[in-house]
């Protein structure tokens, strides 16, 4: 049970510090209907891997990376699930819309490719620095910057106020 090497804080400290922002991220990226499940999957994956972590200096990026992947899984699962033909939704998780201003804009965010979706939210809303964003997206710093740029460009093209 004892961990070796890095001195990891109690897992509860990660939840206290990051559960709310991870939840919001999942509401946006996985959609309100799947946010609860994706949240559970994210934190279960995290606690499973936690004792084996080699570094404890960027736990936030590590958690967001897991959450990003769980949001992708949620999308895939939703794609496979049978949906009554008459009510096939245009956007995957539009059934319980949140009380957000500009719901179409948020629907457009959810329709972005997964990497761009995570990049836009983490950069434009959370202001996560590019170094951390690169780690989170499992890409280079330049690629992270491109994902944000492409995502915003696409939103601007597809959404008109």
């Amino acid at each position, binding site marked *: *049970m*004892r*961990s070796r090497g890095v*001195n*990891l*804080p*109690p*897992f*509860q*400290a990660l*939840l206290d510090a990051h*559960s*709310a922002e991870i*939840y*919001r991220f999942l*509401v*946006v990226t996985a959609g309100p209907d799947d946010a*609860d499940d994706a*949240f*559970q999957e994210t*934190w*279960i994956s995290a*606690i*499973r891997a*936690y*004792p084996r972590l080699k570094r404890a200096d960027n736990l936030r990026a590590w958690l967001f990376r897991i959450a990003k992947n769980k949001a992708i899984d949620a999308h895939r699962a939703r794609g496979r699930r049978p949906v009554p033909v008459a009510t096939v939704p245009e956007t995957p998780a539009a059934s319980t819309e*949140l*009380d*957000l*201003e*500009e719901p179409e*804009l*948020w629907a457009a*965010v959810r329709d972005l490719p997964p990497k761009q979706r995570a990049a*836009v*939210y983490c950069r*434009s*809303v959370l202001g996560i620095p590019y170094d951390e964003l690169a780690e989170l997206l499992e890409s280079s710093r330049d690629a992270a910057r491109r994902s944000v740029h492409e995502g*915003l*460009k696409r*939103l*601007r093209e597809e*959404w008109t*106020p």
Partner: protein
Amino acid sequence: MNEIENLLRKGAARLPGEIPAGLQERLAERAAREGLLDVSYAELDSPVGKLAVASTPRGLVRIAYENQAETFAEELAAKLSPRVLRAPRRLDEVRRELDEYFEGRRQEFDLPLDWSLTHGFFRKVLRHTAQIGYGSVGTYAEMARKAGSPRAVRAAGNALGANPIPIVVPCHRVLRTGGALGGYGGGVERKEFLLRHEGVIAA
């Protein structure tokens, strides 16, 4: 570009500020089911102040008084496992037995104990201490002798002072030879309270 970013930021301010009620509890339950929860903890109220209590799948591992509670979770993470979660429901049994004890309805605890926070001579001393019944007392010299080192009276005192599971492992029942109270990890006024509660000291 900026207009979109501004709208996103403004909209995001309306996202939920907290996770839905019960979600963390469900997470802890699932982690436990999947064998991923090594240490659960909770806070509870008692007549001797707030207590922080922790258990592992093996049993009750730690009780801390308020004055020791600050680094509680960090210590558990460092000494046992970083898979530590606040999971009050997993400590329901501990809470129930402690409540019964403080209400005078229980003299012996039936909780399984996990001794992994104490080792060697210290553990021996504490295991003998666990045998002292409600309303009785022992001495530091006696505990040293029973642990196999009759001359290590001071070390026996240190073992009792470092007791990771006070109250349930009743180190408050160990006094100086001659009857003086001696010290107590949670402060001597708590020791006095517990002995008075058990009828050893006249109320």
